[in-house]
């Protein structure tokens, strides 16, 4: 089977499993969107009537496949609660989440790569040991706690950055940037640790290769050897982790968007869960799952860019 077809099949299978599971879990949750809408004082007749209007009285699997059918044709349905089209709700909030994720990744890589390079200059040296301890420290920290610590430091103590809230790009690039720094740091400061450790260990392996000796024999300086010869062949695991981390980042983003009151996809999802707005939850989860699979698909493509040997295997034979 050609590679691209395999990827597509994978996408379909993942989506099916993810959406079916979400559907079942949200159904098991106690509570009912009809009660949420009508309030506690509603009569059982009113509730039953609304449930029938929303189609909630039909069996779960029927509703699921009903949803799946329209989702496949591009219609994610309308929110039970306020009738807003789910697709539109996601599209409105997507830029915030994307910006958060990109900034977090840039921060994580911006710390991880230099620290890894400095660490392998002298393995077991002072810098290496300090950076390892720092990495484990940050890794052990839950992101909601780090978020609160950062708010305390930068907003409460020094009043440098806004604590919560979001300024759209249309209201000023710098203000927008300021409102995104702390949330991105919260995610990035935890993510860099894994990236750094992985890159460090791959660099150490690469540095033992003969072609590194050959580069040194050419008279290249140690930094040049590291940057020009060792970094790229050491980055494959890093790229893999980067792709897989997107999943963790989405999970983290749900919490971080909540802490910093960012109107992103994560908060949309959380709101949907609280309101038992099944159709909204379903659509958001499906969207996130597609995003995850697509990003990892892109990561796979990136291997080919980085490693000519992969290009060779994948596209010629």
């Amino acid at each position: 089977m050609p590679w691209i077809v395999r990827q597509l099949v994978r996408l379909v299978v993942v989506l099916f499993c993810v959406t079916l599971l979400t559907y079942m879990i949200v159904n098991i949750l106690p509570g009912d969107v009809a009660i949420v809408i009508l309030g506690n004082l509603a009569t059982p007749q009113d509730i039953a009537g609304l449930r029938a209007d929303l189609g909630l009285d039909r069996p779960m699997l029927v509703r699921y496949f009903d949803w799946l059918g329209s989702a496949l044709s591009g219609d994610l349905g309308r929110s039970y609660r306020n009738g807003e089209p789910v697709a539109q709700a996601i599209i409105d909030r997507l830029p915030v989440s994307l910006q958060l994720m990109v900034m977090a990744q840039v921060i994580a890589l911006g710390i991880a790569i230099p620290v890894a390079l400095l660490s392998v200059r002298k393995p077991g040296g002072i810098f290496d040991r300090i950076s390892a301890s720092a990495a484990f420290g940050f890794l052990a920290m839950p992101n909601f706690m780090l978020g609160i610590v950062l708010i305390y430091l930068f907003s409460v103590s020094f009043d440098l950055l806004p604590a919560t809230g979001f300024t759209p790009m249309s209201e000023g690039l710098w203000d927008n940037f300021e409102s995104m720094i702390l949330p991105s740091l919260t995610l990035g400061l935890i993510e860099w640790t894994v990236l750094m450790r992985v890159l460090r260990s791959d660099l150490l392996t690469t540095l033992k290769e003969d072609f590194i000796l050959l580069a040194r024999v050419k008279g290249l300086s140690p930094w040049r050897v590291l940057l020009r010869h060792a970094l790229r062949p050491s980055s494959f695991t890093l790229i893999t982790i980067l792709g897989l981390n997107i999943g963790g980042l989405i999970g983290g983003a749900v919490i971080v968007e909540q802490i910093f009151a960012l109107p992103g996809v994560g908060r949309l999802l959380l709101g949907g869960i609280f309101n038992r707005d099944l159709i909204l939850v379903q659509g958001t989860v499906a969207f996130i799952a597609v995003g995850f699979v697509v990003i990892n698909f892109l990561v796979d493509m990136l291997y080919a860019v980085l490693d000519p040997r992969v290009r060779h295997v994948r596209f010629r034979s």
Partner: protein
Amino acid sequence: MSGAPLLSVREARVGFFTARGPLRAVDGVSFDLEKGQTLGIVGESGSGKSVLVRSLIGLVGESSGAEVGGQVLFEGRDLRALPAREFRGVLGRDIGVVFQDPMTSLNPVMKIGHQIGEGLRLNRGLDARAAAARAVELLTEVGIPEAERRAGQYPHELSGGMRQRVAIAIAIACAPKLLIADEPTTALDVTVQRQILDLLQREQRERGMAMILITHDLGVAAGRADDIMVMYAGRAVETAKTRELFRSPRMPYTEALLRSLPRLTDPTHTRLSAIPGRPPDLARRSGGCAFAPRCRYRTDRCDEEQPMQTWEGARGYACFHPRGVDVGGSGGAAE
């Protein structure tokens, strides 16, 4: 031979600290190499020949956890005393190295032409375009057809023999005065080995380079080295002109090595003569001659005392019972 030697090594030592205690991988090796000459360094795996040469050019040193001693003079300059930047300059301009396995010695994610041109740009100040053009010339010179196209390819697209040719092109790119070939044919097909050795020899002659040819195969060194240094357990046990070494080895180890080479004049199904025993464990060195346990001429003195290098003109050996020389009645002509 005129003036000072190109490379002069005195009492080179390399020690490693292992889990089983300190280990002397190279123990007091000295040699000279004149301009344009070829020195073959021969020994079994673990004899220290690669470590010796790598320590000379700084590839084995403190950064790899080794302790290095002795003096290395290149054109009269003490390499070990040079500041790092100057040392890299000497390495890049004047010394080229071909490693054993061309599968691992080329960078897998860098185009071949770029790998050849890199040193030229750094050490000879060529711009990118000139370096690329020179890389193609070098590829042609080392016998790679369609050099222009090959320069744009990656190492995995070439066969092992081709890659070793590329490695040679990289080594000679900056017109070095010394070429170090560390088992350059061991990882290659037998049919390709000869071509690579011939290529090395041709380049060496045309460019007047000196060469150190490291090999475990006396046969490889035989036709190509001017001098041969035989190493055993980290020591140089015999050094001689190639012809003399083959005609009359002094050291019993050399003799045993020569005897283990198959000869065309032998009748078919003749058993090859192997050297009994195994190379010594360097972490558990005894006080005596390292070869003594495997030596057919061993006496009690060999077990107790380390034989020093004895020199007869340009040839030296470290043995109490040298073959072909009458020393105190214990030696005598072999058989």
